[in-house]
């Protein structure tokens, strides 16, 4: 037995890490619903793709669920008023981003009535065509609730075109500390299953596989009860980070690997989060836009960790105050994070709004923060073993340190999913994943520079052409005028000559 286990352990691909999950007691506490705060700050870019364009004026009254910013471009999502009230400003607010830079945001003053506007409800979503479901999901501004915030309608519509056979539902929630998906599955399993069926109908997938990590037995039981013996299959998966990553979950559930430069749709799979399934259901069945979400408040500094339903645009500061504040007034606070501890964003202060993709607000103390000075690499190879994508983090980081980005790309930098396993296991505490995020940003900046240079070249050429054309036109105009003048002069001369001849003839 022991030997077989050891053999299995040695033979199986042992990717990922097993961090302490810290999910309880937050996961076991019942969900609290936060009342609407006085002011909501709604960034125009809460999703991947183009920012939304405001369609309201300052001073305008809006009802709950009214469109306040429309989608702009192919990949984008609209934004709706999370409550009824008045638009007070369109201004800048600190983004949930490690740079601490600002984003344009619509600021809404709540009037306290919290009254819904008219909603386009639908009794039987299964009578709708996939395209209609896609439109409803797009109009409701639903984005991926797992954190990446990719507009869901784009994925759904793309899937119905790409002949997707399997719908994978991500209930992995592999990030430590977070338990909002766990809570949703425990409390609203039936609604999630309904949402999954709607998405299955929209994508045309034959089967829906729900992957849930086995550290959430309550969620697995609740989902199995709700799913019954239908075509929605609940599949417990081993708890391991990053099990909730798209490519890893697909491989574990279907046994197929997504090609390096491909998308899941290339192998007939599409992945959505459980929270997204719920939002899709609300959008299609009730016509409700995405205006609130479940957020996990956790960390050693949080006085009462738990899951809280908050309106999009609520400041993290107010969410924490509602959750019971910080222990000792935040004296031991070492780091503020929005999202999970592995892939979330470190934020500079708490005056940052909750956006559609915010899954957690973490107040970590010094014992939870790895803040050691990095030491030289000892080439132990632990990062190689941990990397879920099978890359060589130590080699890549050495290249990036010397700014040899092209060599890093040859080693597979573009396949890096920035999960942070390598930095987590490094005994020398080298910030490996930070190197990769830096390099990706640097490469994107280089691409932008190249595009800009091309555009500049084009502009310069156009200017030269314009100058040449202007000079030519000027010359032509001058030549024309000269010709006209000469013609006129010739005519005058001819007339004069004719008159002369006449007078001479008369005189003769």
């Amino acid at each position, binding site marked *: 037995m022991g030997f077989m286990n050891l053999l299995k352990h040695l033979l199986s691909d042992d990717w990922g890490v097993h961090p302490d999950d810290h999910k309880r007691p937050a996961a076991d506490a019942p969900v609290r619903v936060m009342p609407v705060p006085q002011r909501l700050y709604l960034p125009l870019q809460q999703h991947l793709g183009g920012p939304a364009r405001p369609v309201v004026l300052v001073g305008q009254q809006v009802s709950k669920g009214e469109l306040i910013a429309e989608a702009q471009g192919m990949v984008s999502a609209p934004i709706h008023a999370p409550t009824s009230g008045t638009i007070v400003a369109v201004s800048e607010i600190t*983004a949930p981003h490690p*740079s601490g830079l600002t984003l344009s945001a619509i600021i809404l003053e709540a009037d306290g009535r919290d009254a819904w506007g008219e909603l386009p409800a639908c009794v039987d979503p299964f009578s709708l065509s996939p395209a209609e479901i896609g439109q409803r999901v797009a109009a409701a501004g639903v984005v991926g609730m797992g954190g990446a915030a990719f507009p869901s309608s784009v994925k759904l519509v793309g899937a119905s075109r790409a002949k997707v056979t399997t719908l994978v539902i991500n209930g992995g929630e592999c990030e430590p500390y977070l338990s909002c998906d766990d809570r949703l599955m425990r409390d609203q399993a039936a609604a999630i299953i309904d949402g999954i069926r709607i998405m299955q109908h929209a994508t045309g997938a034959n089967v829906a596989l729900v992957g849930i990590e086995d550290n959430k037995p309550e969620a697995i039981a609740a989902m199995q009860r709700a799913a019954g013996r239908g075509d929605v299959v609940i599949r417990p998966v081993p708890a391991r980070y990053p099990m909730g990553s798209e490519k890893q979950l697909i491989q574990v559930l279907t046994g197929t690997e997504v090609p390096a430069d491909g998308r899941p749709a290339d192998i007939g799979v599409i992945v959505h989060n459980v929270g997204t399934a719920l939002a899709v259901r609300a959008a299609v069945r009730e016509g409700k836009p995405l205006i609130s979400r479940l957020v996990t408040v956790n960390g050693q500094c949080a006085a009462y960790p738990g899951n809280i339903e908050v309106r999009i645009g609520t400041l993290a500061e107010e969410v924490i105050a509602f959750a019971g504040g910080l222990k000792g007034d935040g004296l031991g606070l070492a780091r503020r994070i929005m999202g999970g501890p592995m892939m979330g964003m470190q934020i500079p202060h708490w005056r940052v709004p909750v956006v559609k993709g915010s899954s957690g607000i973490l107040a970590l103390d010094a014992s939870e923060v790895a803040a050691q*000075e*990095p030491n030289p690499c000892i080439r132990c190879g632990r990062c190689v073993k941990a990397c879920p994508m099978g890359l060589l983090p130590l080699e890549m980081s050495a290249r990036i340190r010397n700014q040899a980005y092209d060599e890093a790309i040859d080693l597979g930098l573009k396949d890096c999913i920035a999960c942070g396993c390598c930095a987590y296991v490094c005994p020398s505490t*080298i910030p490996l994943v930070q190197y990769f995020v*830096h390099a990706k*940003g640097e490469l*994107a900046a280089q691409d932008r520079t190249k595009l800009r240079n091309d555009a*500049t070249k084009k502009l310069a050429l156009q*200017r030269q052409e314009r100058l040449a054309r202007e000079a030519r036109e000027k010359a032509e105009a001058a030549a024309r005028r000269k010709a006209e003048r000469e013609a006129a002069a010739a005519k005058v001369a001819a007339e004069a000559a004719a008159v002369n001849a006449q007078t001479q003839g008369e005189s003769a």
Partner: protein
Amino acid sequence: MIAAILSLTLLGAALGIVLGIANKFLKVEGNPVVEELLVMMPGSNCGQCGFPGCNGAAEAIVNGTAPATCCPPGGKALASAIAAKLGLTVDLSAMADDGPKIAVVAEELCIGCCRCSKVCPTDAIIGAAKQVHNVFREACTGCSSCIEKCPTEALVMRPVPVTLQHWVMPRPVAA
């Protein structure tokens, strides 16, 4: 047997004395300045400077074959410290430039003379006679040829503002 032991002992003692004398009279002094620089340097022997370790770099800096700015991990701080120690003047601007710049029109100063838009190589300046001009942020290349044409000093070069779309995570400090 005794002869062998005796001869080897004598040989050893004689060679030992020679080595001792050599150590005393032929001692090679290390350059104390190099030693001092070595203390200041990161000491990770990363080789990014192109020399075999920090020692090689320190020697090269002292000999004048390498600039004080040759150590990337040490950065500006180390370069200025070395320069202060050796009494050198260093050009720190080469180590990290202060980013791209673009031209910006101060609208209250612009008189609409159109002189700037005529020289712009990418037609990035928009405006007609007696109208306030403006610069297309996307098209401006930061060549600053318009700056000296402006009679009212309404054009100034400003750093390109960093936005969320353009922000790049800084490279971690090397171990």
